[in-house]
């Protein structure tokens, strides 16, 4: 059927075209991306080294303290018990790797995402162009990103971080844009009426008022980043994700359950800390 069809009408070779385009792109940009990849690797390494240098119990106390400051007693106790549990199971180094990956991805998401978010918040044209791209980024199955990322960065931590950034950045951009747009018109008017420059208006009025929404976006990005850790392990990014992958390929339910639980605990702690529920209540 398909053969007779293609006898008359040529197949649209989109797969091949993209392949060719990526090949050409890779050839021309190899040094750049290798450099970038090395940079990312170096950064994650510093983070992970830092994390593992700290005594696990000190680390746990610090996280619990932050949790207490941001959310209160409940989350602090949960962090204390949860992280100790991870340590007890023997997943501490993997957890630190995963934290390093997530943190790097989120920092990159913020550095790139917030300016874009501000841009779509301020300009309708930017919003009309960027929103469909964000939709595309979010609906395209995350696995697909792995392929070009593999071409550009090879395997290891760097491609894992990049794929995670692509997948998890959209909420940061969207929510930053939304936050800027939600600033009441009369406050914008007031800041203009008193003779603010565009950047004074942005930094003294729009950004501070958008901060809550921006934080919600970053929180969503963190959750998406965590959901990427297993996929990132397909390009050999180390950490908890790699353990889950191992458990699947070797049918090791014990490892699967333990590493899965560790991811859930990390997710809950990070979520509660970045949500800042205490402030919301008051």
């Amino acid at each position, binding site marked *: 059927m398909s053969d007779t069809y293609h006898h008359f009408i040529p197949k649209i070779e989109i797969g091949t075209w993209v392949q060719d385009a990526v090949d050409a792109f890779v050839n021309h940009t190899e040094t750049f991306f290798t450099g970038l990849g090395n940079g990312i690797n170096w950064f994650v390494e510093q983070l992970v080294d830092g994390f593992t240098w700290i005594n696990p119990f000190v680390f746990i106390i610090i996280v619990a303290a932050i949790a207490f400051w941001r959310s209160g007693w409940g989350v602090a106790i949960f962090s204390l018990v949860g992280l100790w549990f991870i340590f007890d199971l023997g997943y501490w180094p993997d957890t630190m790797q995963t934290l390093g990956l997530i943190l790097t991805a989120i920092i990159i998401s913020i550095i790139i995402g917030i300016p874009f978010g501000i841009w779509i918040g301020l300009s309708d044209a930017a919003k009309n162009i960027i929103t469909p791209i964000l939709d595309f980024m979010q609906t395209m199955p995350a696995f697909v990103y792995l392929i070009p990322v593999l071409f550009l960065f090879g395997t290891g931590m760097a491609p894992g971080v990049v794929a995670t950034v692509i997948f998890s950045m959209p909420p940061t951009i969207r929510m930053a844009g939304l936050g800027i747009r939600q600033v009441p018109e*009369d*406050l914008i*008017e*007031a800041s203009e009426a*008193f*003779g603010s*420059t565009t950047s004074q208006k942005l930094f003294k*009025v729009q950004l*501070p*008022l958008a901060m809550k929404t921006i934080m919600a976006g970053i929180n969503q990005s963190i959750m998406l980043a965590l959901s990427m850790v297993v996929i990132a392990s397909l390009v050999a990014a180390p950490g908890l994700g790699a353990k889950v992958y191992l458990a699947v390929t070797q049918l090791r339910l014990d490892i699967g359950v333990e590493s899965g639980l560790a991811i859930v605990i990390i997710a809950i702690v990070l979520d509660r800390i970045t949500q800042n529920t205490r402030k919301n209540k008051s």
Partner: protein
Amino acid sequence: MDKIEVRSVTKVFGKNPKRGVELLNQGLTKSDILHKTGMTVGVNQASFSIKDGEIFVIMGLSGSGKSTLVRLLNRLIEPTSGTVLIDGKDVTKMNKQELRNTRRNKMSMVFQRFALFPHRTILANTEYGLEVQKIPKEERHQKAMEALELVGLKGYEDKKPGELSGGMQQRVGLARALANDADVLLMDEAFSALDPLIRKDMQDELLDLQSKMQKTIVFITHDLDEALRIGDRIVLMKDGGVVQIGTPEEILMNPANRYVEQFVEDVDVTKVFTAEHVMKRPETIEVSRGLRVAMKIMKDEGVSTVYAIDKNKKFLGILYGDEAARAAEQGLKIQDVLKQVETVRLDTLLMDMFEVISGSSVPIPVVDEEGRLRGIVKRSAIIDVMADSSEVLNGDGVTK
């Protein structure tokens, strides 16, 4: 001197505003243009000038273009055509920098829904205009504190706007505008969101501040009572156009057309008109002329009382007919039998005279600052004014 001059300013909202202006020039109305092109006329060829130091009130129904007009003054909204001069400088031709400087130094704005920055303290809100000018911290603290003190909010500087009542928040709005020490205050329905009692307080406070500071205030309201209370002059707008400009009295006494008439119909005239507006000429007796003359005047004019004055027209008291007769029998002087009564001033509002007048069986004497008798107010005059203002007013008032 004119502080602000608005010359044939038009604002059309929509896809092709220039075309809208052409249609307006051809004499089409706001609703014609809306039906024909879908564009909205915000302000239609408005022209007027605002004097230095006056409270200029812009009044009109909802949608008549008041907010648009006031935003054309500081160019928060770009005019489609026309010019706005401030101290002789054309706002519409300024570049960004000049416009910013004008907004910083010449015109401050107070908003209907306060528009305070919720993330900043009261002090930081008040400082905002100074902060964007990069005025040193010390200096702007000091100026902001002075402004807060002026509006009676000393001690609240570390609170956030959300912790304050509506009236207090609007005081902060006022302080923020005053801190800049701009010559012109633009107030878009600044008191409309406040409940009536607080609103009245704020009006009084504004008048009080104005007497100290002599700003030029452009005040928008859709409330005639408020306009009459605080306005030196009022402009009435309809469908974006200027219908009438004048002092409160001019607008009440000579409404330009049916629209203005409808506007002023329900106004409580007793809150607007003063003794001077309704007083009549009294029968007077200069006391040195003696009792006989006084009694003759009463007889000739058919009145039972005369108002006694001295050579300088200073009011001394009321002489009743029967008292005069008794005094004549007993050989007394006019001064010996005068009855003292309450007096009112030229600028006493009718509203504030009700009590005096209901407690008095004779018309109330009106005196000036020196105590000279200027006229009398009869009970009937007030009732007539309340029934229909235009006929009794401005009539055979007393010599000034």
